[in-house]
């Protein structure tokens, strides 16, 4: 019974925020799944399905406006409704979508040749004007989109042909190609959006996109039903109708999955995963995520200003124990925030650098020496989101370990709403030495995440200040060559690792439960941005 569960994923930002496992419940972690294996392929679907029911554990979406789609519930639906210029495969390889072809005549210019013959659900054709309108809308301050920063440095967005749009930047930008496949570039109908005005995205107004599914009915407080878009330009999905429910309670939503009343759910609570894994109602599937769980320190806080104290902390956290007992094996210890799954290119270079980093292992004796040498250390205060059963347990584990090396940690348990204010509100950070974060990358480009620790970044309120680090990443941002960029990124990451201002803990897996009558769904974090519903079909 977790009252704050609903709010858990509800206020996540496009960047540094929770993705998954806003798992509530308070059941014993020893009851977590034992054999966790990653499913990279599943049997192909055989037949059509009339109707499925799917639950959104983060609760009812507050809107369906793709510009606001940084929240779990919204993204899970919008991924099937609105399309971007390009799209991710389950392996995060970029594929064409509404743009048939993307060319980069120079490293500051992107030319999009739009797919012809694409229509919105109302039958009107998608044009270059709709694309420009959608981009400008995300950039509009009044829309307050979480994706606005994707366009930082844009100098112009122009129609350069009947079905061609050109975007230019003031300097080279290697991140923009990834953003093309995120809601930053979800295309909405200009005419319909303008006509709906403030009603756009709401239960009574709805949205107008081009995706394989369209909104049939949104009964506020009850459910949202999507139906197949029969005039879709791409392959015809097998599921004709999908009803989404908003049950935020772990116990009743798990019961509904076990009974088969509900066919599936992304991001199940760890406490429910065993029951679901054992059940013959369906299968519990896991995939790699781009998400790290870590402890971040506010270096302005005198208590953690001393790098030796931070180093001692990093040696204290029982990462192996946390992966096993808190996450029931559905997580892996990591050496740095950008774990192997986040290397979307130049893997050998990233791997070599990763191998050089020390193993994440508890070393209390060494940590104790560092603390003793530091003299008297005031108690540290760390915050965590009590809406996540996992985060709460990680915090307690950390506190217990620190006690053994002579560090006092005070924990500040915050409701999800208050916790998320840490990211946006200076006042909320007062008196904190740091907090436990469940972050995520939107795409496998470590650079995007590392940039948050540079001077001038909105998220660098933790006070990380290393001119050498900033210089390396600035160069990486303008380096189009993958290997050269990977080298710069790994050099910067090595510098940051030495400073221990963030302490990586684990990367949790993404999980999904699917009823046995269905198949086709490969678990991947890309479900937030790609039409995952279109891959599901009947096993028979």
């Amino acid at each position: 019974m977790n009252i704050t569960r609903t709010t858990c994923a509800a206020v996540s930002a496009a960047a540094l925020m929770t993705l998954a496992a806003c798992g509530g419940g308070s059941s014993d972690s020893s009851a977590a799944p034992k054999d966790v294996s990653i499913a990279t392929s599943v049997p192909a679907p055989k037949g059509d399905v009339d109707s499925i029911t799917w639950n959104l554990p983060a609760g009812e979406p507050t809107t369906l406006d793709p510009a606001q789609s940084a929240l779990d519930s919204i993204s899970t639906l919008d991924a099937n409704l609105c399309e971007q210029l390009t799209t991710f495969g389950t392996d995060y390889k970029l594929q064409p979508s509404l743009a048939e072809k993307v060319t980069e005549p120079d490293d500051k210019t992107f030319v999009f040749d739009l797919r012809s013959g694409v229509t919105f659900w109302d039958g009107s054709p998608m044009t270059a004007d709709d694309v420009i309108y959608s981009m400008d809308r995300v950039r509009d301050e009044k829309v307050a989109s979480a994706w606005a920063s994707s366009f930082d440095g844009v100098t112009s967005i122009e129609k350069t042909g009947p079905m061609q749009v050109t975007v230019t930047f003031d300097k080279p930008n290697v991140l923009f190609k990834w953003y093309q496949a995120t809601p930053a570039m979800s295309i909405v109908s200009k005419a319909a959006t303008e006509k709906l005005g403030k009603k756009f995205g709401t239960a009574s107004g709805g949205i107008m996109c081009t995706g394989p599914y369209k909104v049939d009915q949104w009964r506020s407080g009850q459910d949202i039903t999507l139906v197949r878009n029969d005039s879709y330009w791409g392959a015809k999905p097998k599921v004709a109708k999908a009803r989404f429910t908003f049950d935020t309670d772990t116990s009743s939503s798990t019961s509904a999955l076990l009974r088969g009343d509900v066919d599936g759910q992304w991001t199940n609570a760890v406490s429910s995963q065993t029951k679901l894994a054992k059940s013959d109602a369906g299968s519990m599937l896991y995939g790699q995520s781009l998400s790290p769980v870590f402890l971040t320190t506010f270096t302005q806080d005198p208590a953690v200003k001393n790098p030796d104290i931070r180093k001692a902390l990093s040696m204290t956290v029982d990462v192996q124990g946390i992966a096993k007992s808190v996450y029931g094996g559905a997580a892996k210890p990591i050496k740095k925030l950008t774990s192997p799954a986040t290397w979307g290119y130049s893997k050998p270079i990233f791997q070599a650098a990763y191998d050089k980093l020390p193993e994440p292992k508890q070393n209390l004796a060494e940590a104790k020496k560092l603390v003793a040498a530091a003299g008297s250390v005031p108690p540290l205060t760390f915050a965590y989101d009590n809406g996540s059963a996992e985060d709460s347990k990680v915090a307690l584990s950390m506190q217990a370990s620190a006690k053994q090396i002579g560090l006092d940690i005070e924990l500040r348990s915050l409701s999800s709403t208050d916790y998320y204010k840490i990211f946006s509100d200076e006042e909320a950070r007062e008196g904190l030495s740091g907090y436990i974060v469940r972050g995520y990358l939107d795409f496998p480009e470590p650079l995007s995440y590392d940039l948050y620790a540079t001077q001038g970044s909105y998220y660098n309120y933790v006070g990380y200040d290393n001119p050498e680090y900033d210089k390396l990443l600035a160069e990486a941002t303008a380096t189009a060559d993958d290997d050269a960029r990977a080298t710069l990124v790994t050099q910067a990451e090595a510098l940051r690792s030495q400073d221990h201002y963030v302490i990586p803990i684990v990367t949790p897996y993404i999980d999904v439960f699917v009823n046995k009558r269905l198949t086709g769904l490969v678990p991947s974090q890309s479900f937030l941005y790609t039409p995952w519903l279109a891959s599901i079909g009947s096993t028979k």
Partner: protein
Amino acid sequence: MLAFLGRRLGSLVLTLFVSSVLIFGSMYLVPGDPATFLAGSTKTTPAQLDVLRAEYHLDDPLLQRYTEWLGGVLHGDFGLSLQYKESVQDLIASRLPTTLTLVVYAGLLILVGGFVLGLVAALNRGLVDKIILLAISAAVATPVFVVGVLLLAVFSVGLGWFPATGAGDGFADRLWHLTLPAIALALSLIGAVARISRSSFVENLHRDHVMVARGRGVPENQVVRRHIVRNSLGPIATIAGLVVAGLIVATTIVETAFGLNGVGSLLQASVAKRDFPVVQAISLLVVGAFLVCNTIVDMLYPIIDPRVASWRKAS
């Protein structure tokens, strides 16, 4: 009677007005800037926050905002939800049927169950009484969400008789979906009503007029109906009124536990997200429901007990 009704209505309106001031004012005691909640925790620039504040009139003076809000409320307009950007009354209206059905269903279970259990216990002092008292204590002591989890495990997953989530469509389906939640909601409150009923019945059991009636050879079931039950109804009606009014608040936990999207779960989510307009509207609704229930009980008194009517006339 009319004058009494007028006085009651007058005080009802006055109480609602005072409540509205308290409810509206208390929102300002909550720390935190609603604009930052409006923006979520996404990367918002100060300029974006200013735009949001202006749009939702967050910077207007308190009195101005209150009078504007009250003006709207009097016209049946509770404003826009901060998180859903939908009209508050629409949000509540779409969730009200679930909650009302749940409250009526649970209310019936509580009144009938509490009354019958109290009567059976009072008339069968001894083993039956002890068993009922024990069961009542257990029911009252078990938290609603524990009952919810137990009911789900046994009757939904185990036996498969009832669905685990959702409110259902159509009358019969809805009743089927709401049975477990209604039982979870009713269980502890049945105990409260049963306890009061039992002691009220017991108190009347040995009254002189009951003895006299029995002595005269009036049939036992008539004695129970006319003399014991009738005279015990006052306190039972009072507790019943309070219990039924309180049910709306209690739905908060039950609706969440059973995955029902009613007014209760909307209130809970809105409090967590600082969605002020929704919290204000539901709070006012709950106060109103309390007042109406109490007024109804007050008006029932003269019917239950004619002596009350004559006192009121005299005063």
